[in-house]
Structures are given as C-alpha cells and as structure tokens.
C-alpha cells in the first residue's frame, strides 16, 4: 500500500497497535483460540518497511506477522475473521494467525516455522532476477530465527547469486524467553553479514524514519543489482511471546524502560513537534483505528463458520497454463 505522509504511517501503526490489543483481549476473553503472536512495540518496523517498498515488491513474514500484513495493506476484517476461524477469513479459517497471506498485496505469507520463509524469499527473488522484473523481496525474520541453519544457507545463496533480496531482522531482544545473550554467540546480527561478503546495517527499529530510510536504501541497492542486503532493526517485544507467556524471564523494570521508548508515542511526539495540527490529526487517526478494529471484530463475529465438508478441498493446485 502507499503511504503519502508520516500521518499515513502513524495511522497504520496505530491500527496495528489496536489490532494487536484486540487480539490479546479476545484471547483473554476466550473469544478466539489457537495461538497468536502480537507485535506491540514493533509497529515502526512493519510500517517503515512497507513505506519503503514499491507496489510490485514482495514480502515474506514470520509467526509474528499481523503488523506486517496490515502494513502491506491487509484487510483487518478478513484478518480478524481468520483469527476467529471464519469462512470470510483470508484462508477460510485454514491459516489462523500464523499462515495468512494475500498475493494480490505481494504478501507471501506468515510462516509458523522459524526462518521457514527464507528459502521462499530467495526463490521469489530468483524469479524477479530471472525475468528481470525489477521486483525486490523483503524477508523479515526475528533475532532467534538467525540461529537456524536456514538463515545461513539462504544468506550465503542469496549473496552468491546477488538476489534482489532485503532481509530485515526484527531484533526484539528475545526469542520466546531466550534473550540474545543466550541465543547468539555474537549479539550483532548485522555483523553476521560479513560472513557472506556483504555489509549489514543496524538501525533504531523504534524510529519509523530510521527504518524507512535504511530499508529504502537497501531496496535501492538490491534493485540496482547489488544483491542481498541485511538490515537489523533494534526494538523490543512489549507483550509476551504469545498468550501463555508469563514473562518471568525478564523484569518489570526492563519492560517499563522499554515502554518509554515505544514507537507509536515516539512518532506522535515527533509529529507534534513538526506539525501544529498534529494533535487533532492524531486523535482522529486513533479514533479511526478504534472504529476500524471494532468493525473488523463485528465482521468476524457475524461471519459464518467454514463448511467442514470443504476440509479436503484445494490440496492440489489446479493445472497451470504452460508455455
């Protein structure tokens, strides 16, 4: 989707925040079940990436993908319906929180396997290169995902082949309960880039403009044939890993400090510094977001359940036209 101004970006960020808050609330009320990983505190990365991308670019996401999807233009109603397991959801209830996608938006899906979409992203980028489409692929992963073998294999292959691929690592300090220090021998993910002969960049992931600028530059480089780019965005996962997380592995003080730096309030403050009419516009965007989410929940709740007799449909793709 297109973002015309920082206010547009704020609007999406607050929409993501409200969506995730709703998800947490609906879970605690037992109105949705299964699993979900919310991205409260990481909204600037999602929107910063999306704002840097061009319409034809592609995106692959993680298990923590609601924000990415919304930033790429995902419809909150169909997303919420998917969370409710309804027939109107993005995958008619098959995907749930972790596997939603919308190809018309270039959103090639969230993925329940940590680092599991990195090969997919390489392949999408290979197709772009093969047909010289000008498309660049943005592949998001977490800090924990950078310890999977797939991270290494994909980065080496993408760097070797100069694939038009930007890997963005959302370093939120934890993989589930595992802090960086327990997961990564070298805690700089950007530093891992050198192993593949490329330069990694690390930026403040709670700054919309820092993310947007870094990803823009990376996209430009990748689009111009310079191949794989790696951008590390430092942020903090303000909520628990998923609903069951008691967060006993970290202190309330640490969380409180992180809340001081959360991206939504930061962006609001920046906008207010720059634009005299900001407070009013922000209040309006907040209001809109709340309404959109309320409508999304309403849409989901009033949607029908999927028909169980369809459970075996679509296992195989229909025949494709060939050359």
């Amino acid at each position, binding site marked *: 989707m297109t973002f015309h101004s920082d206010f547009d970006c704020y609007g999406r960020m607050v929409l993501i925040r409200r969506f995730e808050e709703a998800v947490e609330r609906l879970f605690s009320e037992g109105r949705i*079940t*299964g*699993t979900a990983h919310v991205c409260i505190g990481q909204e600037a990365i999602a929107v910063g990436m999306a704002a840097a991308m061009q319409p034809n670019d592609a995106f692959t996401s993680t298990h923590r993908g609601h924000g990415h999807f919304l930033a790429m233009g995902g419809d909150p109603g169909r997303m919420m319906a998917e969370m409710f*397991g*309804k027939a109107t*959801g993005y995958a*008619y*209830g*098959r*995907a*749930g*929180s*972790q*596997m939603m996608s919308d190809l018309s938006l270039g959103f090639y899906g969230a*993925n*329940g*396997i*940590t*680092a*599991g979409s990195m090969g997919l992203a390489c392949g999408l980028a290979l197709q772009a290169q093969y047909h010289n489409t000008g498309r660049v692929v943005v592949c998001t992963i977490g800090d*924990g*995902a950078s*310890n*999977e*073998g797939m991270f290494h294999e994909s980065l080496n292959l993408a760097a070797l082949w100069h694939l038009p691929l930007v890997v963005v690592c959302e370093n939120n300090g934890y*993989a*589930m*309960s*595992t802090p960086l220090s*327990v*997961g*990564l021998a070298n805690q700089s993910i950007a530093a891992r880039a050198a192993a593949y002969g490329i330069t990694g960049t690390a930026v403040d992931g709670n700054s919309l403009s820092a993310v947007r600028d870094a990803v823009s530059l990376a996209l430009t480089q990748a689009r111009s044939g310079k191949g794989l780019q790696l951008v590390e965005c430092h942020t903090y996962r303000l909520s628990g890993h998923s609903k*069951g*997380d008691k967060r*006993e*592995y970290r202190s309330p003080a640490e969380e409180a400090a992180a809340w001081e730096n959360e991206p939504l309030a930061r962006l609001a403050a920046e906008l207010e510094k720059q634009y005299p009419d900001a407070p009013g516009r922000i209040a309006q965007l907040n209001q809109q977001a709340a309404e959109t989410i309320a409508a999304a929940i309403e849409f989901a709740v009033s949607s029908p*359940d*999927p028909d*169980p*007799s*369809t*459970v*075996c449909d679509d*296992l195989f793709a229909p025949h494709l036209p060939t050359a």
Partner: protein
Amino acid sequence: MKTFTATIRDTLAAELRRDPNVFLIGEDIGAYGGAFGVTRGLISEFGPNRIRDTPISEQALIGTAIGAAAAGLRPVAEIMFMDFITLAVDQLTNLAAKLHYIYKLPCPIVVRTPAGGGRGYGATHSQTLERLFTGTPGLHIAAPSTAADASALLQSAIRGATPVIFIEHKLLYPLRWEIGLTLPPPLPFGHANITHSGNNVTVVAWSYMAHLALTAANQLAAEGIGVEVVDLRTLAPLDEETITAAVRKTGRLLIVEEGPKTGGFAGEIAARIFETSYDYLEAPLRRLAGPDTPVPASRTLEAACIPTVETIANAIRELASL
C-alpha cells in the same frame, strides 16, 4: 490426581536426581519451562548446566544430544512441537538410528515432543508425525496415553541405550490421573496394554487416540458391544503378539490413528494382521484416521480432521454389525 504434564515433570526431576549424567536440552525449557510448561521449575533445582536452553537450532540441538549420548551422557531433548522435528530428520535418520549398527556407539537420547491437533494451532503446529520415524530401523518410539505409562516409559527411555522418540499428545497434558506418591516403575518398551476387555471388536490405538478409544469402549459397553482396546504404548518395538491375540479373540479390528490415513502407521499394523491372522478375521479390517489433508486452524475445520469418541464409537458399531 496429577496431570500428565506434572507426571512427566516429576519423572524428569526424579531421573535428574538419580543420575548426574541425565540432562535436558531444548528451546525455552529453562526459565520458561517449555511451550507446554512440562519443565517448569526444573531449572531452579538443577541449574542451567543440566536444563540447557539452546538457540533455535533443531539440527544442532539434536546433533549435540547424540554426541553427548555417544560419550556417555543421557540427554533428554525437547523439540517444542513435533512439527519442527522435520528439521532434525537427518540427524535422527542418518546418525542416531545408525550409531550403534555402524559405529558401535550407544545412543541413549530421548527426544520428547508434543504432537497432535485439537488446539487450533494450525497446519504447522498440529501434526502427528510418527510416520517420519516408524520406518526407520534403529529408533524406538513411545506414544503413551496415560500419565502412569508416560512416566514408566520415560524412565525406561532415559535409562536405555537406544534413541527414543517420545511423543506427548498436547491434549493429554492437562488431563489428570490417580498417580501414587511414588512414580510407577520403569516399563520396558514393546508391551501393549489391554485397557478395556471385550469380545466383539478390537481397537488398536496409541497416544491420545487410545484415550478416546477407551472412552468409546466404556460407552459401548452400555450398549452391549464388547470392545477390546489395545493401547500400543510403544510403536517401536511393536507388540505384535498382544495385537494378534486381541484380533484373534474378537475377529474384528479397528485401528485408530490421528494423522492422515494414507501412509500412516495403521497401514503397518493392518499389513501385519493380514500376514499373521488372515484366517481369524470375520469382517474386513477398518482404519479410522484423519483425511489426507493438512490440519487447518479453524476449530470447525480442525474437528473434521481428527477422530473423536463419536466417530470411533460409530466405526466400532459398524464393524460389530458386519
């Protein structure tokens, strides 16, 4: 009354206390206590040296467990969801399963892993993937359906010399059983359990499906249908003797499996009965299993993918009436 979860936790704690060579290795098993809380609290008694949190690196985690076992330790690894064991299939197939046959090394690793659907977790967090291992010589596989069996088999697994895939069904975790103050003694692998006796239909099942089959058998008793329930407890080694005797007793066999029907372990059991007890069957054998499709997240759709007490009972009624 103790949950399946607490029983496994207590068993792990007892084994950790008994043998200093036992240690746990896995993702988020320390302070977090594992995704399902099985190891919760253990780190405070045993410390990070014996409750080892790893990076998200399933290959290296299992490989490290194999090497430690080869050198004399007794690792109990946890793979957070069985769906992720796909990443360790190489190490388990090409190394662990062949370590004694080729290298003459012992490989006493236990790979504990939660399996199965029913919680709306979606296609990559709900699979029952024993089928990836039932065809690999050199591995043992446990799939208990009660807390006591889980404890008894886990003790055997930890004290054994063989790589074990230890399947814990997610829906069993919160269930409660009467477990005495002391844990049950170790149970050798390869001994199925007749959990319900009856003369009309034999049902073979394992893990959560054995639990459901027992419930169905209790219901059907009221209708006058006698069900012999064989809870396999371990898939490898397989207690063919007990299955065969039960099938010969009733002349009718239903095998219940949670995963997709095609290519599952029910086929193996069917083939063995075919080979050994062909003449004793009074009706065609039946497999009740999931459809050949991934497990969707929506509760409505998911429910259509997994056998229930009702569908099991119906299948038994049908078989009994043939």
